[in-house]
């Protein structure tokens, strides 16, 4: 039971980082990316390769994963600067589909459909951190750091700039905001954080393949952010907990055959997304009055 809970908590923490980083794009900057799993994947592959080829140090791997995801996020920043709304969603979809193909075909780097097997146990500055409880603690620390950074930045002028662009791009520009640079910064920052989440994920699973970085994953993360509440610190975490606990909770219901749990889970979060948009578009944790 303890092992089961630790497992759930670790996954929730990793997805918490992922959802918080997507919230930076969707909630604060108004950049509606549905390609976030791509950067999660880039981080995971980069971290895994570093661990397998050089040294399984978590800090170095996080740096590498963040750098790779951040650098390649310029592929997402480019359309974000040129188009908005439906067009950008379409562009990010295109990026997601291309990336999945690349992930499954670039055998040398990603191991193709078979994935990368045998990622060594994680260490941190020479200490072994692979014990489940220790690894959970490390993940929690990373999550706390990320949330702190996001909070500081979003309460400051950077966050105000992004939200101003989200609410009215032309007015933000008329008051001296360099829209292109702010958007690029937001994309790079959000995607680099997703890369770090990917590194943690790779070490934790000791195995990664393309199945974790598909459109379905991007949508799941988007659902977490939106159901929880965009542009709030706590919202994405609420969404993560709900959507991760959902399959666990459903497995206790005797009348649902275990093979259908995946479908029932999707049915529920699909309907929840639609209903929330009708009745509470700000999400569960979003306040309809005032504060962010």
């Amino acid at each position, binding site marked *: 039971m303890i092992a089961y809970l630790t497992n759930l908590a670790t996954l929730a923490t990793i997805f918490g980082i992922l959802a918080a980083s997507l919230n930076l794009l969707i909630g604060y900057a108004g950049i509606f990316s549905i390609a976030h799993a791509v950067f999660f994947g880039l981080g995971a592959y980069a971290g895994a390769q570093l661990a397998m080829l050089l040294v399984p140090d978590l800090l170095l791997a996080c740096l590498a994963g963040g750098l790779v995801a951040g650098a390649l996020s310029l592929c997402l920043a480019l359309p974000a600067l040129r188009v908005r709304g439906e067009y950008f969603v379409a562009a990010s979809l295109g990026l997601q589909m291309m990336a999945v193909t690349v992930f499954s075909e670039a055998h040398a780097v990603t191991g193709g459909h078979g994935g990368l097997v045998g990622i060594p146990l994680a260490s941190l500055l020479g200490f072994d951190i692979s014990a489940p409880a220790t690894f959970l603690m490390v993940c929690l620390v990373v999550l706390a750091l990320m949330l702190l950074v996001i909070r500081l930045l979003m309460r400051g002028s950077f966050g105000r700039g992004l939200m101003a662009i989200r609410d*009215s791009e032309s007015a933000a*520009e*008329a008051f001296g905001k360099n829209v292109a*640079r702010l958007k690029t910064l937001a994309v790079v920052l959000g995607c680099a954080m997703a890369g770090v989440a990917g590194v943690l994920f790779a070490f934790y699973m000791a195995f990664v393949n393309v199945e974790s970085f598909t459109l379905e994953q991007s949508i799941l993360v988007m659902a977490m952010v939106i159901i929880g509440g965009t542009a709030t610190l706590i919202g994405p975490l609420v969404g993560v907990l709900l959507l991760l606990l959902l399959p666990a909770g459903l497995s206790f219901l005797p009348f649902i055959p275990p093979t259908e749990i995946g479908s029932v889970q999707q049915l529920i979060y699909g309907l929840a997304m639609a209903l929330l948009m009708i009745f509470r578009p700000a999400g569960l944790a979003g306040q309809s009055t005032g504060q962010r």
Partner: protein
Amino acid sequence: MSAIPLSVRGLDKHFGGLAAVQRVDLDLRPGVTTALVGPNGAGKTTLFNLITGNIVADSGDVLLDGASVRGLRPYEIARRGVARSFQDLRLFGRMSVRDNVLAALEPASWLWQPGGGGARRAREKAVEAALERTGLTAQADARAMDLAYAERKFLSLARILATGARIWLLDEPASGLDPNSRARFVNLVRQAVSEGVTICLIEHNLDIVTELADRIAFLDRGAKLAEGEPQEILSNPQLISIYFGEPR
């Protein structure tokens, strides 16, 4: 020449076959309020968009203190001291009133603003002062989209006021205001003018124009037909008939 804060020279812009702005010259002087008057579709807002860099002119030039700003992006022109309002306000709807104004004061587009705590306190003071002057102090924590219409209009003005910009371009700032708010608006603008701000406004209400404007530039179909003192323009029967859209 360089005494003129903003000067428009032979500005020309066509959209397809339509001449939106045709060879317009305009000088805005400090402490002088100029009103752009003309029927709908005369090119008034397009002229604003050309000045602020949202639209690039086919030919002609815009000079700030005698220096061309041709080809600069809107945010670069804004940083040279040009602030504008929009007909549809374009507030930052989901942000608080205070953050709306504060965001307008933070042009450095980086992860943080330069200058440290001192500069930050100065900005916060400017925000409070602007809210005070526009009567929005009590609503400082409300979301912009939750404000009443008149309050939203004053918020769009507070954003401009706080920046300390020396050139204001106001697009129908008083439309839809009740008489009381209108009087407050007129006072605010007069005070700014007395502090040396150069103002250009688009306004359909001729009462407001006569109350505020020192000069009127009359536009029709993209061309400047006349410019002069308000009485001179408003007593010209030909212009007035164009303005009220009587058959020509």
